[in-house]
């Protein structure tokens, strides 16, 4: 179904207008596969607005996803886009970034993908300050496979593989990102669309390893199983439970089934990126003999 043929209802007498997100999307692939009330599309909406505000040449932005519901984001973006293997979006993106340093490379994936199977890569990319922007849509579950335990599932929540309630302690993603050395760490929920858009825009304009966690409802598998209502009910809960604390200590931002949801920009620090460090170090060691790495030579 091509979106060009989908009717847009607008006020009579006004010219037809397209959704402002559409130029950033592969329109022929919409409608997308996400469930009614899933928050992933909302994050994409905010991301498209941020791209529009922060980037002048979209040809110089690449997006890389892993596997899962959020792993489908790359395929909907009208950018150079890669839907890679489960957990390995970050190392793919690192290779791409180092091969073409003039590109902005965004990793967009889910909590299970980035922090369970891909956790090791996240830690090391943050440690190296790899020049990547990593957006994690955290819905607390494995949606694509049917609602299994995630490393972020709150204690007490029921999942198909934790049918009597989760007894594991979940991972605090901002705390991990901070400890591993990320340059920029923020968290919002899909309630905070304006703040999220602003943070995504800010992060797109920065260098180094940038991490943005976005809490989003999974109505089909997390909410229904835990009798938490629809997507919109959960977003209302985000509104009620959220406290904006810019600069909060990331050790204090744990999430549970109840209690405050601390959101805001937690970390923003300057560190040389991996490539800057390599070039600076070898310049020092080899002097003028060093051939600094800036990317590919022009095509013959």
């Amino acid at each position, binding site marked *: 179904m091509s979106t060009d043929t989908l009717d847009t209802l607008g006020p009579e007498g006004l010219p037809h207008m397209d959704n402002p997100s559409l130029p950033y999307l592969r329109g022929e692939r919409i409608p997308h596969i996400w469930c009614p009330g899933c928050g992933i599309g909302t994050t994409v909406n905010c991301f498209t607005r941020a791209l529009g505000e922060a980037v002048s040449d979209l040809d110089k932005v690449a997006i890389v996803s892993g596997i899962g519901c959020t792993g489908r984001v790359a395929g909907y973006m009208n950018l150079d*886009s890669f839907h890679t293997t489960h*957990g390995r979006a970050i190392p793919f993106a*690192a290779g791409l970034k180092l091969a073409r340093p003039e590109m902005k490379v965004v990793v967009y994936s889910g909590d299970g993908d980035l922090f369970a199977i891909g956790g090791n890569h996240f830690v090391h990319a943050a440690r190296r300050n790899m020049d990547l922007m990593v957006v994690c849509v955290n819905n607390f579950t494995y949606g694509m496979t049917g609602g299994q335990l995630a490393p972020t599932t709150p204690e007490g929540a029921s999942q198909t593989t934790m049918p009597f309630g989760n007894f594991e302690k979940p991972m605090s993603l901002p705390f991990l990102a901070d400890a591993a050395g990320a340059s920029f760490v923020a968290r919002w929920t899909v309630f905070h669309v304006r703040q999220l858009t602003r943070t995504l825009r800010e992060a797109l304009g920065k260098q180094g390893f940038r991490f943005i966690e976005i809490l989003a409802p999974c109505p089909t598998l997390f909410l229904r199983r835990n009798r938490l209502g629809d997507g919109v009910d959960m977003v209302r809960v985000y509104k009620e439970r959220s406290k904006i604390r810019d600069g909060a200590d990331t050790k204090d931002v744990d999430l549970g089934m109840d209690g405050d949801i601390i959101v805001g920009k937690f970390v923003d620090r300057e560190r040389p990126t991996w490539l800057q460090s390599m070039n600076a170090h070898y310049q020092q060691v080899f002097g003028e003999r060093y051939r600094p790495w800036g990317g590919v030579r022009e095509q013959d």
Partner: protein
Amino acid sequence: MTADPLGVLTGVHFIDGDHAACEGALAAGCRFVAGYPITPSTEIVERFASRIPLVGGVFIQMEDELAASIAVQGAIWGGQKSMTVTSGPGLSLMMEHIGLAAFTEVPLVIIDVQRGGPSTGLPTLPAQADMMQVKWGSHGDYEIIALCPSSPQECFDLTVRAFNLAEQWRTPVFVMMDEVVGHMTERVQIPAPEAIEVVERRWTGLKPGDYRPFQPAEDLVPDMVRVGDGYRIHVTGLTHDERGYPAMNPAAQDKLVRRLATKIRDAGDALVDVREEACEDADVIVVSYGITSRVAQAAVEQARAQGVRVGHARLVIAWPFPSQRMAELAARTKAFVVPELNLGQMSREVERAVAGRVPVRLIDHAGGTVHEPDRILAGILEAAR
């Protein structure tokens, strides 16, 4: 085109196979390596890391082999020639990304310096027991190319060739070394850059909008673009159509999987390299590859001294397997002898190709060292009887 002089150490060197393979990669234009240390392959990345500051490029030691084997794919889409290097346990970890590279047609080179296995096995000692894994190890149907050097000189030559084949066919290409050939030091002659043939990427001539990333050319291989050049490509490990978009149906699966297999299976002589010696009128033909071919050569010569008419066919390209050539040889010989450092891998391929017309005698070895030539000789003499 020919090699970029910056990467070519022209001259005569006395180096081991690992170092020679690294020089081969540099000569072929490889400027990005992501690796993870593993014996007995580590010297390749160590040399690359020390060479690259003055050549220009990137070496990054990743956190594991999964990371290494996909970072290089990111770099390749970014326009670089790129490889990773490993040994058995690391190759096992790379399997998922070998499938990704085959399915998304990434011109990826992987050097596997084989050691005894399974599991941690014999880290410092040789084997040739990854030959089936490298062909079949990732799930699903796909084809790869595998080259088998038997000397440090060939480690150089065949690594250059591996890059060229990868660019031409857009499928993973493996250099199947082993611990002995990797650590054996011999004379290696590196030619002048203008004497080294280098195959460039199949850059498309089409403009964005006209270009489809998985639309095959006549040889069934699609042309490529580089990220950042305005084509806005999508690449997925899901079954995909020519636009690169997911296509979740049996027809799309059939079309794509068959094309990927056929482009290699129907390549014909372009992907056959069997070095034959005295096979035309041989009563017995020894089929060998890699380091074992050098041990076998001694046995072949001893057998000839005893009056046996014995030929030697060395597989330089082991995958795709030269089935047709083996069948032709089967029509004019009485027996095959296949020595290999495993309990029977490529010998099964010889059996399959020969299809029962003549006996195939495996001279196996569990690995850890090379064969005693006498065992191969005994096999030849028995086969000739």
